[in-house]
């Protein structure tokens, strides 16, 4: 009989019932980070432009969307999207109950669905090839917004945070 291994990595999507304010997003992401076992993580949601992108008011600044700094695991970075869902790859199934508890602690008043599935692609797409050429580290796949002109990604590591793209679109 074949049984699922509990040591294989799993992919999970956390979808809160509401869009999160930066402070709540920070709380949620820190709780998830504190749970541990994260191989990679991406946040997803509608874009927050720094200025009006089109129409008669094109170019007018949107002060509300600027400097949305959040701090995760001691590293600060700027939010470019309204946090609507968080996709994660966890080292193994054993981190899932902790993740559920972390979401309940961070979002006591907001319903939250946690789905297990496949959320990161495994083979490079044409967009990936156009941006990176041959992909050396396959963990990067699925972390990039394919519509962004450049990759927009914050890499959290032990030594510091790198924001690859600060250019406005």
């Amino acid at each position, binding site marked *: 009989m074949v049984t699922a291994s509990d040591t294989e990595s799993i992919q999970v999507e956390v979808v809160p019932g509401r*869009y999160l304010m930066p402070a709540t997003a920070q709380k949620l992401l820190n709780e998830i980070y504190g749970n541990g076992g994260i191989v990679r993580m991406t946040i997803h949601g509608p874009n927050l432009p720094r200025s009006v992108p089109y*129409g008669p008011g094109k170019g007018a600044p*949107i002060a509300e969307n600027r400097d949305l700094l959040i701090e995760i695991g001691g590293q600060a970075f700027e939010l470019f999207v309204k946090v609507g869902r968080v996709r994660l790859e966890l080292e193994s199934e054993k981190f899932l109950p902790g993740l559920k508890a972390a979401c309940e602690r961070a979002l006591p008043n907001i319903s939250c669905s946690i789905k297990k599935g496949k959320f990161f692609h495994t083979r490079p797409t044409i967009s990936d090839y156009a941006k990176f050429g041959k992909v050396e580290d396959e963990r990067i796949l699925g972390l990039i917004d394919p519509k962004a002109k450049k990759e927009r990604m914050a890499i959290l590591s032990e030594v510091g945070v790198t924001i690859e793209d600060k250019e406005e679109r």
Partner: protein
Amino acid sequence: MAYTPQFYPGSTSVGINRRKHMSGNLEKLRDIPEADVVAIMGHRAPGADYSSTHPPLKEMGEPDCPIRQIVAPTAGAAAGDRVRYSQWTDSMYFAPSIPYWRSYWGAINCKGCDPGTLSGRQIIEARERDIEAYTKAQYDSEMTDVALCSMRGCTVHGHSLRLEENGMQFDMLARTEMGKDGNVYGVKDQVGIPLDKKVNLGKPMSEAEAKKRTTIFRVDGVQMCGTVGARKYDEAVEALHHMWELRSKWGYRPE
């Protein structure tokens, strides 16, 4: 006996609300000053002159036409105003008016307007002083909840997106904001240009009140079929089936 149009079938709360919207028999919930509505529309500065596309009709010397003699022009048409628009985005999370019902309201109750419905937004075009009056009527009435509906001339998406934590409809350009006093404030005009002063739009509806006043059928609210488990569907569905049948079999021309 005088004919009273029924407008919309059904006995559910949504059916009743849809009838109210179409008939124009709406409750007035707030009174937003006209100057503030003009500022949010953003077409002219409050108090400024109306721009025109032709001289007033009285000066133009119109041709002898029986229709023109029967139909009195609207104030905007008589003055020769430019055609302007107001566009609304209403959340699918139980906003009182959904796009089609703003259009029905406009087409039935507003003279000289051109309503248009899109998937998540609704636009009405009319002569400038007419559209200002129509927009104020929409703002003041129960068609609008200031948290779930907002005027968006561009970057309109929000209808089908989840709400923000504070119950506001998501707006990429942050045209409205929830104040600390619980009131919603308009801070930008409908195309995202900041206003000189914030406009107090009043308190939003509670979730229960929005569900009571909504015109959207939802499986987690009021269903189009009426009461779940009832032996007979609500009249709204029966009327819809009837129309579908006539339309499919005879192209709406039963002869």
